[in-house]
């Protein structure tokens, strides 16, 4: 699996995700500066977490217009897998590769803690190593993770099975109490129509090694390895 990680000014999870990718695949990803015009030939492009451009204007808004993003959008159209984590998810919604928008958390507070996620489907390149209904523990760390889409878009996401993960409790129950940021329908991650673009607010790379306190996040990277190798 050839992977590339895009580095924006203000990205801060680029190295963590590179470590997780290398642990899964044995190969270090290409680190690609946002000012480059082309992503090297890759099976997977990762947009990492962080605070690209200091979250100026709106989270992800400036990064969405970085030179490299034109090629990321083009390659996504050609079927290259794209994974956006946290700020990367925000960038994907701003480019229009994913629907909806990540608004300020309903609590108005930055939330940094482990959350429980329910895996909504396991027949995708990102989640094949989980089972549908699995409850996994992954950390979130964001101020703008409150997923919003208009009612038609939400219906379409639900009807076409494009919700990837939902915030839940230990038993997998999804409720207002298990919603850390006000997201509609407790949505933590969504797929595009092709299923080859995933954006999620939680950080799988932060719990992808036993030394970090858990390995529930590793499944995202091993799933990709299985699908793209």
């Amino acid at each position: 699996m050839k992977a590339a990680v895009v580095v924006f000014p203000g990205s801060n999870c680029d190295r963590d995700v590179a470590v997780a990718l290398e642990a899964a695949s044995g190969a270090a990803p290409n680190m690609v500066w946002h000012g480059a015009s082309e992503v090297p030939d890759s099976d997977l492009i990762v947009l990492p977490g962080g605070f690209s451009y200091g979250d100026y204007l709106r989270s992800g808004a400036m990064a969405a217009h970085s030179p490299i993003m034109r090629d990321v959008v083009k390659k996504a159209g050609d079927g290259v897998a794209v994974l956006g984590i946290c700020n990367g998810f925000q960038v994907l919604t701003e480019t229009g590769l994913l629907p909806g928008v990540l608004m300020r958390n309903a609590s108005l507070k930055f939330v940094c803690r482990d959350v429980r996620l329910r895996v909504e489907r396991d027949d995708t390149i990102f989640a094949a190593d989980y089972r549908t209904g699995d409850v996994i523990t992954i950390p979130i760390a964001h101020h703008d993770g409150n997923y919003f889409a208009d009612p038609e878009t939400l219906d379409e996401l639900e009807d076409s099975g494009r919700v990837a993960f939902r915030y839940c409790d230990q038993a997998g129950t999804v409720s207002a109490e298990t919603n850390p940021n006000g997201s509609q329908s407790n949505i933590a991650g969504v797929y595009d129509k092709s299923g080859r673009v995933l954006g999620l607010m939680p950080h799988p790379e932060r719990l992808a090694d036993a030394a970090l306190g858990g390995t529930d996040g590793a499944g995202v990277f091993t799933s990709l390895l299985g699908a793209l190798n």
Partner: protein
Amino acid sequence: MKARITITLKSGVLDPQGKAIANALGALGFDGVEGVRQGKYVELDIDESDPGRARDQIERMCEQLLANTVIENYQFELEAA
């Protein structure tokens, strides 16, 4: 020309910041505040003297970057420099 652009949340989009502001105003003793919606204000100078062309450019700026039209509306006024 100078453009004064106001970006606001669409009606129906929850505005937790506006709600917090309304609560704070209540705490300060302003009892009559029935609702607060907050937004953004952008002022920019544009090297264009034709109002029609300026209007067209500002509109494209709003659509492509300044506003996220999934959740935001924008309006603007132009003023000769």
